[in-house]
């Protein structure tokens, strides 16, 4: 039994530590997603305004986020802020900022699409009943767009969960980093640990993401008609 790498998992608190690492991953993804949904709605509404300047700025933001790899953004915020602004933010805060920055852009574009897809007469009949712009959005337009937005939003969340593995590189100890620590600590006693630990991490990601992607599929079917 000496060579079976899986035993590493049950040494000390290793298994619990992995779950704790996953919790960090999830925390970053969920907080960033929550903020992205809020800001994304505002951005999406802004993007439908018929104003050249507003359009240019939002377009520029969206394209910038899409072109830059998330890793570059992470380095930019984490090291850049420390070096040039003298701001010492924690790795986790930097990660939340970057993922929110990215998520807001993606979410904003989704919201924009959903708002444009809502027929014009929905806005007009709300206006005809004396509703102002906010009431129209809040009571009439947004509730209609939410059902259309749910599947792609859930999809974005799973992408975000997976992309959080990048935060290792700015020193955040999340699930992949914990795994690496365990592997390094047992390198001489159990050389095969790597396979087992990464295998477990793979399954852990699956456990978290699979329900979301099922949910997304289910919502898509449910709202199809």
């Amino acid at each position, binding site marked *: 039994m000496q060579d079976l790498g899986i035993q590493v998992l049950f040494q000390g608190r290793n298994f619990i530590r992995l779950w704790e690492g996953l919790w960090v991953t999830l925390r970053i993804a969920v907080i960033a997603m929550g903020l992205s949904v809020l800001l994304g709605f505002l951005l999406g509404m802004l993007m439908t305004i018929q104003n050249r300047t507003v359009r240019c700025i939002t377009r520029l933001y969206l394209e910038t986020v899409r072109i830059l790899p998330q890793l570059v953004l992470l380095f930019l915020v984490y090291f850049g802020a420390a070096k040039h602004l003298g701001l010492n933010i924690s790795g986790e805060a930097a990660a939340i900022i970057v993922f929110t920055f990215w998520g807001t852009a993606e979410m904003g574009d989704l919201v924009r699409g959903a708002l444009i897809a809502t*027929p014009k*007469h*929905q806005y*007009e*009949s*709300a*206006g*005809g*009943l*004396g*509703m*102002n712009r906010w*009431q129209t959005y809040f*009571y*009439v337009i947004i*509730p*209609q767009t939410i*059902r259309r937005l749910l599947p792609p939003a859930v999809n974005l969340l799973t992408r975000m969960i997976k992309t959080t593995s990048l935060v290792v590189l700015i020193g955040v100890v999340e699930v992949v980093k914990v795994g690496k620590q365990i592997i390094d600590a047992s390198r001489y006693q159990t050389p095969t640990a790597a396979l087992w630990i990464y295998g477990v991490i793979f399954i852990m990601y699956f456990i978290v993401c699979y329900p979301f992607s099922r949910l997304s599929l289910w919502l898509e079917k449910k709202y199809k008609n």
Partner: protein
Amino acid sequence: MNEILQVKHLKKSYENNEPVLKDIDFSLQKGEVVVIVGPSGCGKSTFLRCLNLLEPIDEGSIILNGETIDRKDKNVHQHRQKIGMVFQSYELFPHLSIMKNILLAPVKVQKRNRKEAEKEAEVLLERVGLSDKKDAFPRQLSGGQKQRVAIVRALIMHPEVLLLDEITAALDPEMVREVLQVVLKLAEDGMTMAIVTHEMEFAKAVADRVIFMDQGVIVEENRTKNFFAYPQTERAKQFLNTFHYEALEI
């Protein structure tokens, strides 16, 4: 004279195009029903949309109860509550039940008591014969039923004027009657209305006065009986003739 709505020298054009409305003068007395007819593209729908401040106007003024109103006014939303409108496409809110569709504006915009508004909604639904549909969703209703709900939704705001923009144009023929009967009943009850329609028989029955528009101007304006029996202008005669069919002799 008890004028609720007055329009003076209204002009309107869409960007870089021939003007849609050229110098329209119009007035509506309390309790009066005016039907606006005319060929497609004559500007009658645009005119109603201007009255409800949905479209910006280029020149002229719209006067509601002696007060000039404009799209850019701060209280434009209050003006709109006094001018109800029903459109051609059934524009109920698809995510809300019939009752919630009706209650949304009185409760959220006018801040009325929900219970009291609900009671009134039930009375109104009863009047249009849809009491049993209050918990249904718009997609479960026929076009005619949806338009009747749209009328109720406008009525519960207690508008002083009701604008109806070709409300039966998108309906199957057998549903037209059920909707127009509701409108006839409203006219009987003294509702002030401006109606755009292509249903000439309905216009005869409901209107006190008929306005005939063509190419952005009011060509003729007359009491209903006179308009249909003795149209004064050649253009109006031609227009009315398009509704007559005679068997061709071969």
